């Protein structure tokens, strides 16, 4: 409790003198291999695409508070994307803007879940529930990565996605326990999003080469399932059983929505390269 912190030390338990100005932590660190850069690129693209999708709700959400909430979540995700893409680009001298605005669809590495369209509000909440639960488990473990920059970004991000998960859980429960119609829509939305869950937990060749640096996706499946089961059982919902989709976003295969999303996201930067305001 705050009452117990001493007045003499305004920084609580932080000893500023012990804080090293490590190059990795100040953002000037360079990804040490093409593999590390590729890994950061995939995580950065997931965050960037989800941020862009959520931005689409601003001024359109069911209530004003949700405009603000989804906008806030998008802003956090954009912050994660910036850190991750800056690090990914450090390997070959590309900036975060080069990566966000001047790559084409086949060069993105986002997974299909993040590329699913917003749909109705229940679809967005189902996507958020899956995404935030997955990202929380991922970042919680990545914060122990042997790569100092990835560890720092993850330790920062995990606190924010935990809050996003709270938001998604509360809405899932509210929709499931609300009216007959809201419950029906929540069930439909979970079923529509579930084919894209498996891809999140597939180990790839890249992961095999990054032992200690990357988090092995397959190890996240059990904790993810545990949280999802606990949440859905609160309102008597079943975990959907559906055929998983092919996926392939970490290579270069994307859901058809990505091209349209990129066209909108990139048009201004491409028409006016280098413009600032």
């Amino acid at each position, binding site marked *: *409790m*705050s009452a117990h*912190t001493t*007045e003499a030390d*305004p*920084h*609580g*338990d*932080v000893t*500023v*003198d012990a*804080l090293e*100005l490590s190059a990795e*932590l*100040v*953002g000037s660190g360079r990804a040490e291999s093409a593999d590390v850069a590729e890994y950061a690129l995939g995580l950065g693209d997931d965050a960037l695409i989800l941020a862009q999708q959520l931005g689409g709700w601003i001024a359109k959400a069911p209530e004003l*508070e*949700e405009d*603000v*909430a989804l*906008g*806030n*979540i998008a*802003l*956090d*995700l*954009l*912050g*994660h994307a*910036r*850190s991750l893409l800056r690090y990914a680009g450090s390997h070959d001298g590309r900036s975060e803007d080069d990566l966000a605005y001047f790559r084409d669809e086949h060069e993105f590495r986002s997974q299909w879940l993040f590329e699913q369209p917003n749909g109705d509000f229940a679809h967005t909440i189902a996507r958020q529930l899956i995404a935030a*639960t997955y990202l929380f488990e991922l970042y919680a473990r990545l914060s122990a990565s042997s790569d*100092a920059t990835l*560890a*720092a*970004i993850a*330790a*920062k*991000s995990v*606190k*924010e996605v*935990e*809050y996003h*998960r*709270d*938001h998604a*859980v*509360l809405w899932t*429960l509210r929709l499931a326990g609300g009216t007959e119609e809201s419950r029906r829509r929540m069930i439909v939305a979970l079923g529509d999003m579930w084919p894209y869950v498996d891809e999140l937990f597939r180990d790839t060749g890249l992961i095999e080469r990054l032992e200690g640096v990357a988090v092995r996706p397959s190890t996240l499946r059990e904790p993810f399932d545990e*949280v999802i089961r*606990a*949440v859905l059982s*609160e309102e008597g919902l079943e975990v959907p059983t559906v055929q998983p989709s092919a996926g392939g976003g970490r290579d270069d295969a994307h859901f058809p929505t990505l091209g349209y999303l990129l066209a909108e996201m990139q048009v201004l930067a491409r028409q006016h390269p280098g413009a600032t305001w």
Partner: protein
Amino acid sequence: MVTTRSRAWAVAATVHDPEVPVLTIEDLGILRDVRELEDRVEIVITPTYSGCPAMDTIRQDLELAFTEAGYDRVVVETVLSPAWTTDWMTDEGKRKLEAYGIAPPRVSSERRGPIPVALGVRCPRCGSLDTREVSRFGSTSCKALFECRACLEPFDHFKVH
């Protein structure tokens, strides 16, 4: 060493958060280090939230404050680790927030379970604990929107992070 560092720290501590102007960056706990070196002064800050748009303004304000204080070369670094927490907000900062009409973060940040539990937040206007959360997200990333059932006023809560 102690005296020069304190002088530079005092300069850095004059900079306020542009979005919560009642707080200095020291009150907020985002001023992490100030180092006066032979040819420059280095200031280390950390973002509250990853996407916080105030960081650029704070960086500019720091450069201005040090230039005005007579420093020639100012380097502002941003660190992500260790990640900022509201536990680093000073007690003075919490008092200022409450006087300003924003309920300060009162409990320490700690891991919670997957199903959120609402905690009581005191109304900064009338002191009642009979308040409700209107939205977990507010006008900036660091605040949630509350409403007091006793005095019927809406208010911001600086959320525990």
